[in-house]
């Protein structure tokens, strides 16, 4: 069972050792360190490799482009993190982005103005998330099944609404959002940075964050202590939907039109970034910085391979290999 000295005063467990940080060498030998920091280690590794193989990779212009390209995935990964922290998974994330984009395009085309269009797009994707959470908790149906259903459902809805046709969105506001910059970073990067900061505070410095992790860790125990786990789950899915809405704004701004196409790699990469970020797929353990850096790493991988003239066909293979590797490290830690 355990050692006899468990609850008795013991020298090695006395207050003196409390709070002391482990030494660096012990840290480097601890597999959980590598799992927690997989995304950082991976990112640094990629930057070094690509920097040596193709010095253009490290040019300011390329790094700025890389960050810009990563912004959407970072925002989505944050949404996915909240859901995965509750031991769920949001498969409808990329479809929600598409729905948000289409609503944005249609409302804008109908002449209601870009701001109303943006607000409605975000409201619609948040509603999708809320609906996901409601069905999962009220119907007691596995997250996987519900969001798979929503994925298909809102794909259809998007096609019906748009008639399968892309809508051009010619808006100076979105154009400025996509191309403008403040300081060293473009606006989309700032949007992603703000999302990271807000989400980090929500996760680590609010009661909601603790309750989220408790719900994901042991829902039954959390419930026994009076935490309303269903509400927490619904909130997590709504946050995920909200992030999808923000991502849809960034996406439409970037490509200038609303397309009824689902970017499945966005969905898969959002899950991949979360895994790389050291978030447990079983819930209860999460960070925001990890998945954000995971998203950066995946974008850097694609960017670097492109610069090295590696065929685009090889890129999913590389992403897959890295994700499985990260999952193995996590497993080893247990």
């Amino acid at each position, binding site marked *: *069972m*355990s*050692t*006899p000295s*468990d*609850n*008795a*005063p*013991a020298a*090695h*467990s*006395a207050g003196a*050792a*409390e*709070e002391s940080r482990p030494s660096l060498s012990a840290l480097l030998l601890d597999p959980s360190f590598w799992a927690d920091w997989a995304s950082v280690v991976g990112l640094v590794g990629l930057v070094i490799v690509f920097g040596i193989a193709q010095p253009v990779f490290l040019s300011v212009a390329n790094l700025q482009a890389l960050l810009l390209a990563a912004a959407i995935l970072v925002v989505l990964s944050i949404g996915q993190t909240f859901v995965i922290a509750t031991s769920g998974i949001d498969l409808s994330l990329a479809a929600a982005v598409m729905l948000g984009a289409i609503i944005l395009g249609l409302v804008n085309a109908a002449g209601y103005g870009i701001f109303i269009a943006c607000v409605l797009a975000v409201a619609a994707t948040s509603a999708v998330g809320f609906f996901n959470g409601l069905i999962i908790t009220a119907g007691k149906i596995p997250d996987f099944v519900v969001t798979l259903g929503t994925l298909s459902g809102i794909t259809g809805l998007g096609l019906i609404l748009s008639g399968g046709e892309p809508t051009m969105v010619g808006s100076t506001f979105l154009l400025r959002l996509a191309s403008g910059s403040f300081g060293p970073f473009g606006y989309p990067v700032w949007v992603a940075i703000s999302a990271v900061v807000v989400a980090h*505070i929500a996760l*680590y*410095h*609010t*009661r909601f*964050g*603790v*309750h989220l*992790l*408790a719900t*994901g*860790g*042991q829902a*039954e*125990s*959390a419930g*026994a*202590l*009076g*935490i309303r786990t269903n509400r927490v789950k619904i909130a997590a899915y709504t946050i995920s939907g909200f992030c999808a809405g923000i991502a849809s704004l960034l996406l439409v701004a970037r490509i200038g039109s609303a397309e009824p196409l689902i970017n499945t790699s966005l969905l898969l990469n959002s899950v991949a970034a979360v895994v790389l970020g050291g978030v*447990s797929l079983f819930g*209860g*353990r999460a960070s925001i910085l990890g998945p954000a850096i995971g998203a950066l790493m995946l974008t850097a991988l694609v960017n670097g391979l492109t610069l090295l003239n590696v065929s685009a066909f090889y890129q999913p293979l590389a992403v897959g290999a890295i994700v499985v590797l990260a999952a193995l490290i996590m497993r080893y830690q247990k």
Partner: protein
Amino acid sequence: MSAANHIPASDAIIACEGLSKHFGGIRAFTDVAFQARRGEVTAVIGDNGAGKSTLIRSLVGVHQPDAGNLFFDGRARPFANPDEARKAGIETVHQNLALIDELTVAQNLFLNREIVRRVGPFAFLDRKAMKREARSMLSRLSINVPSINQRVRRLSGGQRQAISICRAVGSGAKLVVMDEPTAALGVQETANVEALIRRLREQSVSVILVSHNLDQVRRLSDQIWVMRAGKMVATVRASETSGNELVALVTGAV
């Protein structure tokens, strides 16, 4: 030796009369009268399936009794859910401990009772205050854990039990309910948890202890209530009974 003691005594922290609960056609317990005195350790014993756990769960709002009256702290008040009971001052140490493995000791101690600092409309966790409080809660009960920043997953069974009890007591609860606190523990760990329960009694915390370890019950409690096949069949002072008498009461051999 009868369990029929209808009016709750003024020194009862919790009391019930005529309490019944059934699940469909299965009667968990019928017409139960029970009370626990303030500042005492009150034990409920009985064989597996006698209805102990269901009775306790009905007292703390997990189950809703079908009939009967429940008094807590001098007032008639059934609890609609565990949260209400918790707010009224009943803390339960669940059999599964209700700890969150991936959270730290300090986070577990303050789960759903977090200390916050308000900044305008926002409330942020006051982690320093919670850690400080957590340390003093643990030291008040002489509980040793390697660090309050340690994830609960890494702790031993006895330490986890101690954390769960500490959380229950630390909130200033009027009554702490423990369901089989040592069922899953080894010999030494059981001794540690028993020492902890004795410290609670020294500090005049009211405790209800569910157990089917008769020796433990005699060691720890002041008053013992015996359940058999869904009925409360007897109550005795721990100091005035013997192991043989308890065995007889539990098995129905009297």
